[in-house]
Structures are given as C-alpha cells and as structure tokens.
C-alpha cells in the first residue's frame, strides 16, 4: 500500500518538478515521474486483482472527516490499472503533442502541474472509502481538469467552454454532497461501509439517495440529459487532454455508480430498470447527434456519450439479471459493461490522439476542410481506421466483444419467463442494433469525408508528411490492445472474473463463467477463421494480378470534364438522407442563398443542427435560474466593506453551527 501512495505522490511531485526544468525538458521530466508512479500503482493494483490481496491503509483527518480508509478491491484495482496504463500513453502522447506549443507563452508549467494534480486525484479516487475525502479528491480532479481544458486560453470559445464545464461540474458536486450528506446524516459516519445499512433499512430513502447520487455521477459520466458539457469541453481541450478526459475521467462517473451499487448490496427492481432505461436513452441520443457533427472532436464527444450509454446499458442488464436471479444474464451483462469501459478508453484515446495528429498537421478539425489524409498521413490513417472500426463494434476488434456480450446477455434473458423482461430486453436489443448501425453511418462519414477523397481545402494541401515516431508509438500500442482483445477475448475473462464476482454473488457463478469462457473461445476461433479468410482472398487477388498492369486514371465523373474537390460529398450531404428520415429528432436550421442572376454568381448554403435537448431542456432551465438569480444581484454590489461583512457573518454562523452540532 505504501508503494501505491508513493506512486501517487510521485505523480503529484512530477508536476511541480517540471517548474525547475527547461521548457523543452518539462514534458520528459513529468513523463519520468509519471511512469514511475503509475508503474508502482499498476503493480499494486494488478497484485490486488489477481491474487486478491486486499491492501488497506487508514489515517485520521480532523473533524468532520473522521477516519479515512483507503482500500483496494477488484473494482478499484481495475480502475487504477486502467488509469495507470492509459494515463501513461496519454502523457507520452501529450509530451510530443505539446512540442508545437513550446516557448509560445502557453503556460506549459502550469499545464504539467495541473496534470499531476489531476492524475493523482484520479488514481486515488477509486481507493477512497470516506465520503468527505472522496469529495475533496473529486473536487481536485474537477478543478484541475478545468485548468487543463483552459490550455489554449487565448481563444474566446475555449474560455466559455471551460467555464461551462466548471459550472456543470459544480452542479454535479452539489448533488454528490447532498446525497452523501443524507447518507452520513443517517449513519453518523462518512465511511462508505456504514452506508450499507441505510440503503437496506428504508426502501424509499435508498431509491431517492441512489437517484441523487446517480445524477451527480451522471453529470461526470455524461449521461443524457446531463451530457451537454461534453461536446463543448472536448473540442476546447488539447487533444491528449480530450483523450484522457473521455477515456478516463468520465469513466470515474461510472465508477461512482458502480461503487454505490456495491455499497447498496441488495437491489431494488426499479433501480435496475432505471439504469437500463437511462443507458438506452443515452446511447441512442449520443449516436444520433454524433452522426450530424462537423467537428471531429465534437463528433467523438457525442460518441463518448453513446459509449457511456452502452456501458450503462450493460450494467443495467446485469442488474436485471441479479434481480431476476439469472446468473448468466448478470454475468454477461456486467462483463459486457465493464469490458466496454476498458475498450472505450482504448479506442477513444486512439481516436483523440489521431485527431491531435491531424490537427498538428492540418490545423483544422472541420471534417469538410480535411480529406485525402489516407494518402498524406498513411500511418496515422491506418491507426485511426482501426479505432473507427473498433468503435463501430466491428468484428475482429475489441468493441465487438463487449457489445456481443451485452447482446448475449439480452438473448439469455429471454429464458427468464417474464413478460416485462421479454419486452424490455427486446426493446434493448432493437436499440442496440439501431445504435450499432447509426455508429456505422456516423463513422463511415467521419472516415470517408475527413480522411478520403480529394483535399477539401487549401489547408490539407500543405500536409505532406505524417507525424513523427513519438506521436505514432502510443497509437500503435493502443491499436495493438484493440486487436489483441478483439482476437483473444477469452484472456480478458481471466482479468475480469474477480471483478464480476464482486457484483454477481451466486452459487452457480462458475457455471456462468464457464459458459462465457466457451462462448469467447468460439468467438475467438471464428474471428481467426474470418481473419484468415480475408488474408486468403487478398492473397488470391494479388496472385491473379501478378502479371497484370494496374493503370491509374481519373475518377469517373459521368463525362463531366471539370470535376474538382468542391463537387465531392460533404459531411452534411452524407448524412442528409438520414437527417431527413429522422427529421423530427433534429432542430435543423437551413439557410440557402442561391444565385438568382442569369450568369454564375456566388451563393451559399448553411445548415445548423443543434442538440435538441439543449434547446428544449437545458436552456429553458438555465434561463429560468438566471431570472431568479437576477433578483439577488444587489448582493454583489462591488463594495469591499460589504464583502468583508459577508465574510464576518459567515464566520459567526459557522461558529454557531459548530456549537449547535457538537
């Protein structure tokens, strides 16, 4: 345990150590500290995961926190090992990504300090078992990530996105504080283990507190309708930060929900249905909006929302399995959901790093200004393509495995002879299928428009070389993870078994595990057959073409001789038929200014598609709150004396409160 704490301190120290280094060396120095620290944390958590060593450490904090317990269990070990490995790749990539920002007054030092704070809070969160200390670490994570988002602070939209993020995270914290204070009020302690009884005594209270905490964690995870900060914060942050936030930080929201479920122990049926419903809504809404985005990072942000939905859906199915006493459904659901947490963090980091590489070269992330990158940046494109295939859930790659497990959970659930389950699982099955096909549409658009065809703007024409080796290495590692998990999913079962066991406690657990192991063996076998089939057909093709001429010619343009890059399909025209099909679900504003004279003149077409929930749900609420708060504006009158008086009154009230409390 001490090694783990030393690791956390090393990560924290790494950020501050970078003060003393030259601008070019800061990243390397931080990387050195970070890799040592995360390696220590990884070793400890893997030890805990595989050999069930329950590391424990506790210390006393002054009133009101009380005794703080740090404890390793499979769930925290899983999250910590994921943060250590994925975080290392992110920091490694960030070091090379920031090269173009050096010596330009970007505040590299403060970036690394906050990166250190961010990671030490992130890696510490899964072991904390004290609500008070948990909230402090949570707050450190949120605040430091706010500064990380604020990296490119000269841009106005970055500042507004960062402030939006900050405010959202504090609304989230209000819910967490509320939920935890209700629990600690009834239990008289901040220790997580003392909450267990509260959850079991009063059914109504338990449900209410769970929903409050679910909302609080849901903000962080980006569950619909609490998702609106994600598509704003991701485009604003530098690419490695977007990757880390999407790959790791939003998963901490899921961690919180999972932790609450573990504390609750026995479940209420409403909660299981609630979690599943939110999961389904989130994934459908996320991918629906992802497919109409023009900015790569915004698209990826919405796709993160979709994937969080899939994870939640898997967990929801697992919970229903527990409630209905079907171990196989519970096992498959939890396995799918938990594996998808890992899978998503792998391919989402890969995609964000790929986006970062594109940005360093082409200086734009607008899909309609890119194009032709497969020819200009071949290695980055192949790696990005791997990520795109994986995130669409294509076989041979890891995304398919987790989705397949959730599908299998749903199919096994039909054997529970219950009307509700059959209907709900059938709806989930159809929603998963719809999400899958919309993801296909969304990511073929992303890759087809942004990476293929002719260059769509002058910016791309200047790109001649791929990014350097140091930026490619982390992506190669991530792509390797994707393929390994995709082809050998049976190995992953060994990693996840202790983790699933902590959620699914049943006598026939080993039977379910055995069934899944056999299933994954066959999946792996079929995937390998499929892979060899591809290789055989490619070999036959090149054999048949051996002595034949391959000539280059221009693209068929229907006899029209003056085709240029402007005539290619654009991002919006690609999803046009789709938007027409689901026109009720989008708020579309078209603005067409067509040439009206006889001779050619300029015209323009512009289309805006906004987030439906943001327009009809979030904004009215925010406007309402603004109206109410406007009535209190006299409090903030700018006079220093009054502010000192406020402080004084607060102090007196705090002291009085303390007296009454003790």
């Amino acid at each position, binding site marked *: 345990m001490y090694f783990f704490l030393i690791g956390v301190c090393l990560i924290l120290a790494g950020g501050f150590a970078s003060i003393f280094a030259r601008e070019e060396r800061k990243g390397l120095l931080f990387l050195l500290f970070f890799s040592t620290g995360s390696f220590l944390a990884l070793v400890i958590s893997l030890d805990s995961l595989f050999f069930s060593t329950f590391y424990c450490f506790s210390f006393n904090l002054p009133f009101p926190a009380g005794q703080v317990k740090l404890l390793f269990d499979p769930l925290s070990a899983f999250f910590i090992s994921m943060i250590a490995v994925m975080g290392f790749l992110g920091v490694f990539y960030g070091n090379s990504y920031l090269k173009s920002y050096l010596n330009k007054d970007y505040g590299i030092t403060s970036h690394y300090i906050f990166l250190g704070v961010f990671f030490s809070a992130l890696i510490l969160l899964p072991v904390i078992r004290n609500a008070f200390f948990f909230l402090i670490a949570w707050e450190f994570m949120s605040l430091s990530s706010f500064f990380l988002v604020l990296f490119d602070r000269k841009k106005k939209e970055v500042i507004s996105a960062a402030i939006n993020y900050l405010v959202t995270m504090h609304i989230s914290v209000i819910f967490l504080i509320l939920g935890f204070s209700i629990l600690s009020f009834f239990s008289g302690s901040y220790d997580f283990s003392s909450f267990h009884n509260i959850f079991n005594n009063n059914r109504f209270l338990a449900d209410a507190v769970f929903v409050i905490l679910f909302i609080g964690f849901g903000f962080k995870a980006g569950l619909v309708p609490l998702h609106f900060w994600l598509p704003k914060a991701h485009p604003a942050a530098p690419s490695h930060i977007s990757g880390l936030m999407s790959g790791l930080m939003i998963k901490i929201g899921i961690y919180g929900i999972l932790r609450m479920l573990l504390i609750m122990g026995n479940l209420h049926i409403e909660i299981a249905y609630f979690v599943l419903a939110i999961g389904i809504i989130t994934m459908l809404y996320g991918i629906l909006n992802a497919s109409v985005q023009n900015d790569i990072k915004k698209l990826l942000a919405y796709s993160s929302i979709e994937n969080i939905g899939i994870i939640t859906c898997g967990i929801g199915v697992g919970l229903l399995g527990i409630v209905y006493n079907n171990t196989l459904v519970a096992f498959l659901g939890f396995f799918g959901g938990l594996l998808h947490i890992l899978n998503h963090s792998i391919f989402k980091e890969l995609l964000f790093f790929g986006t970062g590489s594109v940005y360093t070269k082409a200086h734009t992330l607008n899909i309609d200004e890119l194009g032709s990158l497969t*020819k200009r940046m071949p290695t980055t494109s192949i790696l990005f393509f791997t990520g795109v295939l994986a995130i669409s859930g294509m076989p041979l790659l890891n995304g398919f495995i987790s989705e397949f497990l959730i599908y299998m959970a749903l199919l096994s659930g039909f054997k529970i002879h219950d009307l509700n389950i059959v209907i709900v699982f059938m709806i989930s099955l159809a929603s998963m299928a719809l999400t899958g096909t919309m993801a296909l549409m969304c990511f073929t658009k992303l890759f087809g428009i942004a990476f293929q065809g002719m260059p769509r703007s002058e910016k791309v024409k200047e790109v001649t070389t791929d990014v350097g080796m140091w930026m490619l290495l982390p992506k190669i590692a991530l792509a390797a993870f994707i393929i390994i998990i995709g082809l050998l999913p049976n190995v992953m079962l060994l990693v996840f078994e202790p983790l699933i066991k902590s959620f699914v406690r049943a006598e026939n657990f080993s039977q379910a595990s055995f069934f899944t192991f056999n299933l994954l063996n066959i999946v792996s076998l079929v995937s390998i057959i499929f892979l060899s089939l591809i290789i055989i057909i490619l070999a036959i093709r090149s054999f048949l073409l051996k002595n034949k001429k391959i000539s280059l010619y221009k693209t068929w343009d229907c006899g029209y001789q003056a*085709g240029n890059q402007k005539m*290619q399909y654009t991002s919006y025209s690609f999803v046009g038929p789709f938007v027409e099909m689901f026109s009720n679900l989008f708020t579309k504003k078209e603005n067409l200014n067509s040439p009206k004279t006889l001779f050619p003149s300029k015209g323009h077409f512009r289309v805006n598609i906004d987030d439906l929930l943001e327009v009809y749900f979030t904004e009215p609420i925010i406007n309402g709150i603004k109206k109410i708060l406007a009535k209190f504006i006299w409090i903030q009158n700018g006079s220093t004396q009054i502010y000192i008086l406020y402080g004084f009154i607060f102090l007196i009230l705090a002291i009085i409160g303390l007296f009454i409390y003790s």
Partner: protein
Amino acid sequence: MLNVILNIVFIILLPLAFIGVINKTKAFWSGRKGASIIQPYYDVLRLLKKELVISRTASFLFQIYPSITLAAVFMAALLIPFVMHSSVITIEGGFIFFAYIMAFGKFLSVVGAMDVGSSFEGMGASREASFSTLVEVAFFIIMGSIAAITSDNTFGAITLILEKAGTIGYLIKILSIITFLILILIEGCRIPVDDPNTHLELTMIHEVMILDNSGIDLAMLTYASALKMLIFTSLIANMIIPESSPLLLFLLLYFLIVFAVAFGIGTIESAIARLRMSRVFDFICFTSSLGIIMLALIVVSMFS
C-alpha cells in the same frame, strides 16, 4: 460432413446462377430470349482476366476493400444454414455475429466508395449507410423474437418455431419470410429500392458505389452482392422446408424455392418501377413494423 461440403459448394456456385435466373425472368417478361442462366459466370470469369484501372485519388483502401467485403459476406454465409438446416459454423448468438460481419463488409464498401472522391459514389455510400440503419433493426427484432420463442440463440432456431410456438408459429414463419423477402430486395439492391440496370447515377445506390471498380475487384463485389441475396433466400428455404425431409427431397424443395424467389424478384422488376428515393424510407420502415407485430405475437404465444 456431406452437409458441410454441400454448403460450401452452394455458397460458391449458386449465387451467380441466382442472378442468371433473375435476368432470364426479366427477359421472359419483356418477350426476349435473354442470356443463358450461366451468363453471370462468364461475366465474372471475364472480369477476372481483365487488368485494373484505379482512380488517382484512391488510396490503399480502395484496392483491399473488395476482398475484405467478399470475405465478410462469405464468412456470413458460413454461419447460415444452406443445406439440411445446418450451417458450416454454428455458434451461440449466431445471428448477431452474422449481422455484425455483414456490417463489417458494408462498412468497408461504404468507406471504399468514398475513397475516390466522386460525388456519385458519395451519394451511393450515403444512401447505403442511411437505409441500412433501419434494415438491421428489423432483422434483429425478427431473429431476436425467434430466439425468444425457441430459447435457442443459434440459427438452428428457425427450425424449432413450429415445435415451440404451435399454430401461432405458422404466422410467425409467414411474417419472417415476408421480412426476409423485403431484406433481399434491400440488401440485394433490387427494385423497388434500387435498380441495378439503371444508368442514371443520381438514382442508384449499390451500383453507383462500384462505378470506379474494375477487373477482379468488380468481380468480387458482384459475387458478394449476389451471395447476399442467396443468404436470405436460403434462410427462407430453411424456414419453409420441414425438418424431417430427407436430403433429396430437401434439395428438390430448396432449388424450387430459390428458383421461385429469383423468379419473383425478376417479376417484380418487370412489373413495377423503382420507388422515389424519399419513399424508400417508408418501404424500409415497413419491415420494422412487421418486426413489432412479430414481437406482439411472441408475447401472445409465450404468455397465453
């Protein structure tokens, strides 16, 4: 073992004959003599001998995608029962694997079409991707319902419907067969969704996506598209033919059904015109509504 060999032989040889029958039917209805049923084999052989012409805009993906698409459809076919209700590979959750492998092929053909930077191919790719969103849902609901009612997650479940669902099973079979027939038209890009013979790029879907492919690549894509139709036809055949029928009777009925479906497609193509692009969506939605009726039937038969 015999079944496995027959399955593979059927997968390799039948698809092009299926196209041949469709073309012969169309010739019959328009009063022509028409090309022989084995003409598509000659066409494909001719393509295999040809050289390649590739667009200057295209990248490496353009050259490998037809092979991967073919591999995907071929792999999907191995999961489907062709002869005697048995497939080459039988796995739990087979239809999910099947749908995702087909989607893999579709993904690559859409991305491959986008590679040449042509507005026409973008058009086809966009339509293919948009329409497939709803088609898959229908397929999942149908196969999911069958899995629910038979408690069997493999494709073998389609033979168990009558046994598990009783008389209502007939209704379920009829509805699934109608859905699969529509899926053949959509996946095979036939009238009324798409017209393979049209030469107006603006109205095409599948054919416009392969405008720039030539030689062996075009041969592979043609074969893959024919195999897709045969896959769904085989599903229909295996659903209709009683489980107890001996091999010879099975083969007789199988060829009869495959011929009937091909004849039907040819007749539809001769009789009606393509739907307007915006109406295609309604047509596809029809399959999903059939799926929902299926779901209602399942609930009735499971809980009555």
